[in-house]
Structures are given as structure tokens and as C-alpha cells.
């Protein structure tokens, strides 16, 4: 290799010595949409982690005078000219003369500029120390309902941020558990074959031919009523994963059946490697990327599952706040027609699911060594 071309070749040399994961990372970075989606996912998890700081109010703060208040708009231009920091007008509620419904109007005389690191409801930051600073807020007397309020006068933005905590992690734990089940059961089924394989395949068939809603309902109804909401939440993730592992087990089994016949596997057998070693050392690395992809693609399914079931009243219930629980308020048309902002949690669900799907797609392309 000549001196003059070293710089040019540096990249190429890297390519030959790069590990499988480095190659994948490189390919993934080229997939613009997937990278942006990945950032979205990270942003969602970050906002879930710091939800008590980011949200303007506390989770259960009720504003009795502002029930079903519509979203407040942020303004830049006020009666006194352009503001550097956006502000909201105060809102006042009154009874509609005919329908007697409460309607809200902006009170243009009251201007509340947005305050950063404003004082509000105290909370424990990450469980470490007590503080009452919120990322955004307004001065006393003003209100900041950027996404409106619900039937109890609670700020919807706050509740959505807190709901992300539950909705986004339900899937994680569920996927982790179904990963463990699916991988080990699928591997055993594929490698040992014979009657074990037959038995496991029948078991999967039975589980899959079971309609999921009855299974879900019965299992969640069977959770003891004395359990705390947190325990029920955990129980439900276990239930989700109990239904979720069969797909992964099938994929793993299929892959093992195919890889078992490869020459290098035969070579390992001839050299006297134990079954466990062949499986863990030689066969598993052959399809780790597939597993990562199917896990990413399983996450949105779990988020949708939680949302749908909570919406139906079968999953989580208040006082737990998840996106599905928030959507319960939007269950009938009248409520949606009068208060369309109650549907905003669904926007978050769609964005999260889309982002996960795109990341999964990007990973799949990146993991495919024969990709175009």
C-alpha cells in the first residue's frame, strides 16, 4: 500500500477489521430516518425519566376552576409589542347561556410570561432530593395548560409526561421477559429436536390459537385485588410477555435448525464441543442481530397492547397514569367532540410506535449482511 493512498484506504482498512457490530452501526447511521427516529425514542425516554421536572404541574394537581379547559396558546406578540419570551393570556371560565356548559375565553388583560425553572408543586427529583423547580411554569395566579385539562381539571401535558413512564416501560420489561422465554425455549426446541421439539411446537400452537383478549382478561382478573397498583402493573407486563414469547421462539428455532446443518457446526461437533458450547458459542452469534431487530419491532406492539387494553378498561386503571388510561376519558364521541384535546395522548402513542418501527427497520437493514 503506497503512502499517498493511506488516507483513502484508512476507511477501507477499517471496514475489513471492523466487527459485526461496528459494521451494523455504520450502516445504521446512513439510514437518516432511522437515526432521527432513534433520537426521538431517546428523547421520549428522557422526558419520561425527568417527567416531574419537565411538567409544569404535579401529577394529581387539580384546578377546580378549570375543568375541561382547552389548550392555551403560546403568544409572542402582545398588546405591548413583541415579547422575547412567549407568554400566555389568563383564561376565565363562564357558563354558556344556552347549554350551561362551561366555556373558556382568553382574558387579554392578563399576561403571564413563561418562566423557566419556575416554582411549583414540590417533588423528589429522581428520588434524590426535594425541590419545587419545574422546567416551565407561570407566575402565581396564571395557568399554563398547553394541552388543556381533563374532567378533574388536571393538566394534560403533565399527565402525558408522567404517562410516558408507564407506557414506555411496560413494553421494555415485557420484551425483556419474552426475550428470555423465547430465546431459551426456541433454542432448546431447535437444537434437541425430536419429541422435545414436537412438544414445544404444540405448546406454541396452543398458546397462539388462544384468542388474546380472553387470555389477557382472565389473567389480569386473576391478579389479587390486594396488590398495589405497582404490583398489578408488573403483573400485567408479565402477562404481556407470557403471550409475546411464542413468535421469538419460532424464529430462534428456525434459525437454529438452519445453522445446525452448516459446516462449521459440524466441525465443532467433530472437535468434541459440548452441545451447550456449540449453541452459545457458535450458533447464537449467527442470529443475534435478528433477535435485536425482532425485539425492537416487538416493543411498539406492546405499547399498542397496553394502550388498547387500558382503553378498554382491561389493563391499567387509574390511579396509575398511562397513555391508555388517559385515553379512557376520550371513550365516547360526545367527549371527543366537545373536548378534542383529550385525544392528544394518542398522538404520543402514534409517534412512539412510529419511531420504534423506523428504528427497527433501520436495524433490520443494518443487520442484513446481504443488504442492497
Amino acid at each position, binding site marked *: 500500500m503506497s503512502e499517498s493512498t493511506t488516507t483513502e484506504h484508512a476507511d477501507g482498512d477499517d471496514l475489513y477489521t471492523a466487527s459485526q457490530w461496528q459494521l451494523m452501526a455504520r450502516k445504521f447511521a446512513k439510514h437518516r430516518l432511522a437515526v432521527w427516529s432513534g433520537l426521538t425514542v431517546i428523547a421520549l425516554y428522557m422526558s419520561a425519566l425527568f417527567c416531574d421536572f419537565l411538567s409544569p404541574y404535579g401529577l394529581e394537581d387539580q384546578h377546580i376552576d378549570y375543568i375541561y379547559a382547552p389548550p392555551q396558546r403560546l403568544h409572542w406578540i402582545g398588546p405591548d409589542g413583541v415579547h422575547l419570551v412567549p407568554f400566555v393570556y389568563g383564561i376565565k371560565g363562564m357558563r354558556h347561556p344556552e347549554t350551561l356548559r362551561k366555556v373558556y375565553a382568553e382574558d387579554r388583560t392578563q399576561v403571564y410570561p413563561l418562566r423557566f425553572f419556575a416554582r411549583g408543586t414540590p417533588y423528589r427529583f429522581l428520588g434524590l432530593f426535594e425541590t419545587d423547580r419545574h422546567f416551565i411554569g407561570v407566575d402565581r395566579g396564571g395557568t399554563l395548560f398547553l394541552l388543556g385539562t381533563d374532567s378533574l381539571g388536571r393538566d394534560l401535558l403533565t399527565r402525558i409526561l408522567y404517562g410516558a413512564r408507564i407506557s414506555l416501560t411496560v413494553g421494555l420489561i415485557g420484551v425483556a421477559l419474552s426475550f428470555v422465554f423465547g430465546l431459551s425455549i426456541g433454542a432448546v426446541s431447535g437444537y434437541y429436536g425430536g419429541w422435545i421439539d414436537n412438544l414445544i411446537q*404444540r405448546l406454541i*400452537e*396452543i398458546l*397462539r*390459537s*388462544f*384468542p388474546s*383478549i*380472553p*387470555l389477557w*382478561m*382472565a*389473567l389480569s*382478573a*386473576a391478579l389479587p*385485588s390486594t396488590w398495589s397498583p405497582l404490583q398489578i402493573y408488573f403483573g400485567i407486563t408479565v402477562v404481556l410477555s407470557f403471550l409475546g414469547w411464542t413468535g421469538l421462539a419460532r424464529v430462534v428455532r428456525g434459525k437454529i435448525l438452519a445453522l445446525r446443518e452448516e459446516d462449521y457446526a459440524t466441525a465443532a461437533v467433530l472437535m468434541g464441543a459440548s452441545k451447550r458450547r456449540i449453541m452459545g458459542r457458535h450458533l447464537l452469534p449467527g442470529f443475534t442481530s435478528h433477535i435485536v431487530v425482532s425485539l425492537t419491532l416487538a416493543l*411498539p406492539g406492546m405499547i*399498542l397492547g397496553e*394502550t*388498547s387494553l387500558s*382503553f*378498554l378498561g382491561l389493563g391499567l386503571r387509574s390511579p396509575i397514569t398511562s397513555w391508555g388510561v388517559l*385515553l379512557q376519558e*376520550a*371513550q365516547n*364521541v*360526545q367527549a*371527543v*367532540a366537545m373536548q*378534542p384535546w383529550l*385525544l392528544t395522548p*394518542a398522538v404520543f*402513542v*402514534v409517534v412512539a*410506535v*412510529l419511531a420504534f*418501527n*423506523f428504528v427497527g427497520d433501520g436495524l433490520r437493514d443494518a443487520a442484513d449482511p446481504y443488504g442492497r
Partner: protein
Amino acid sequence: MIHLILKRLLWMMPTLLAISFISFALIQLPPGDYLTSYITALEETGESVAEEQVEALRQRYNLDEPFFIQYGKWLNNLLPFGFTRQDSGSYLWMYSEGGVRSFNWPGFKWPDFGMSFEWNRQVVELIGERIFLTVVISIVTLLFTWALAIPIGIYSAVRQYSIGDYAFSVLGFIGLATPNFLLALIFMYIGYSVFGVSAGGLFSPEYVEAEWSVAKFADLIAHLWIPVIVIGTSGTAGLIRVMRGNLLDELPKQYVMTARAKGLSPWTLLVRYPVRVALNPLISTIGWVLPGIVSGSVIVAVVLGLPTTGPLLLRALQNQDMYLAGSMVMLLSFLTVIGTLLSDILLLWLDPRIRYEGKA
């Protein structure tokens, strides 16, 4: 091939038996039974329940017997071959004045799905009156899905990375990411706020109880499209992805190039070979359509207030109406098993590669 089908049919027996056991266990799993929840519901409204009446009901429905006896009786009733129940309530023998008169031998009989507690009617009747509309919705949805997804999938694969492909991909992803019930809510919201009509249900109010007529049929068609779009969207989106991916895998293969080199017109070539191969996954999932007929659209049906079997199942499960719920769960699983078998047979028939693999 026949050998394979027979083997699969034999395997169905233990599978179904296991499913029946799990169904029954699941329905029994939540604490209490229909009567206890019924009594609590009555007491909440302030009514009191006579002790003797409760006892009589418990006796009548065998609610106090051990689990396995209850399961055995239920299973026996479901099967087309088994013991018939005598007037005295016993399955095994017949009483007369002098004591046991004769033993009862198993024989062929009609399956008996039992009574629904809540509706106080035969389970068969309850399912029967809802199944027709459910089947109509499911089949129309399936046709809608295929009619849309297959051409779009083919187009997206053949014109990969074209503007149309991107547009359909974005639409498809959004369709996949939107929960069904949300779509239903949005449709109802638009119907309510723009057209001032309620989009729920399958009939206008004046036709709900009416006899079948041309006008009622037209009314059904006019209402049908909303549930069909709502239920079909995510399936369509998924199918487009599958179709596109499969076809993209097939197109660069050598047989396609060979056929093209031999001068086959692009269209004939496309439809005759790669599309046929790419359709395989559609056929292997056709089996899931059957159970979907009964349960697939529960959530949408609840939101839209459709008179289908889904909400019936949901209510039955919530109220622990065990014979209704049990029969429906059993029916669903049965349909899935049959459906999987059907799609396997279809695959064997359509795809020679699988057929020969089976022989080897």
C-alpha cells in the same frame, strides 16, 4: 400429502383437548363466579337476594362441584359423542321409583353449549344471531385489505424508492402505528362534527329492528364502510409491507432474469412468477382470518357499537358468564386450529417446494 393432513388432523385432538382445559381453567380463574358477581351487583342497587333462591341457582348450575367434575360435565356437553343428561340431572344412570333403573351408555348427540346466565338463553342462539353480521364484516374487510394491499405492494416493489413508494410507505407506517380504536374515534368525531350523524352501529335507528329488505340492505352497505376501513387499515398497512418485502426478495433472482431474457413481457412475467411466490405469506396467514371473524375487532366493535360477537364475548368475560364465555373461547380456538390447518393445506397445494420437502 394426504398422510400429512391426516397426521395434522390427529394432532388436532390433543391440541383441542388442551385448549378446552385451559379455556375452562381461565374462565374459572378469577375469584368468585357469575352468581357472586350477580349478587354483589344486585346488592349495590339496594336489592336483597333470597338465600334459598341463590342456593337453588347454585344447585342448578353445579357451581359447588369440584373443578374437575364441572370441567368433565362441560366437556361432555360440548362433544358430539358422549353421555346424554337424564331428566334426573345425572349423566351415568337413570332413576326410577325402585332405584337405579339402567346405566346410560355414551352415544352420538348434538353438542350442547349450555345456557348463558346473563341473558338466560341458549348460547347457540346468542352467538347465532350475531354471527351473520360478524362474518359479513370480516369478509368484506378481508376483501378490502387484499384489494388494496396486493396492488399497492406490487407497485411499491416494482417502483422501489419512487415518490409513490415513499407515499405509500409513510401512509402504511402511520396506519400500522395508529391503534384501531383511535381510528374509530376519529371517524366518529368527523362524522359527528362534520356530518352531524353518529357513525356508530351498522344500521340507521329505523332499520335496527326491521325485517330484512332491500332498503335495510342498502342501509347496511351505507354504514359498513366505516368499520371496514377502521378494522382493515392496520392489516392493509402490514400486508403492503410484507408484499413489498417479499417481492423485493424475489425480483433480483435469476429465474426472473432468465424469463426476461427469453422475452416474456414484463407484466406477464411479474404476475406469473414472482408475485405468485410473494403471495405465500398471505396464504399462510389466511388461517388467522377465521378466529378474527369472532374476536379480531372486539375493541373497534365496542367503540363503534357494532352488533357483532366481539362485544358479546367481552361482556361474557367481564361478568363471568362462564358457559357463554367458555363456548366462545372454545369456538375461537377451534376456528384458529382449523384455519391454520387450512392454510397449511393451501400452501402445500400451491407451493411445490413445500410439497416436496414434506415428502423427503
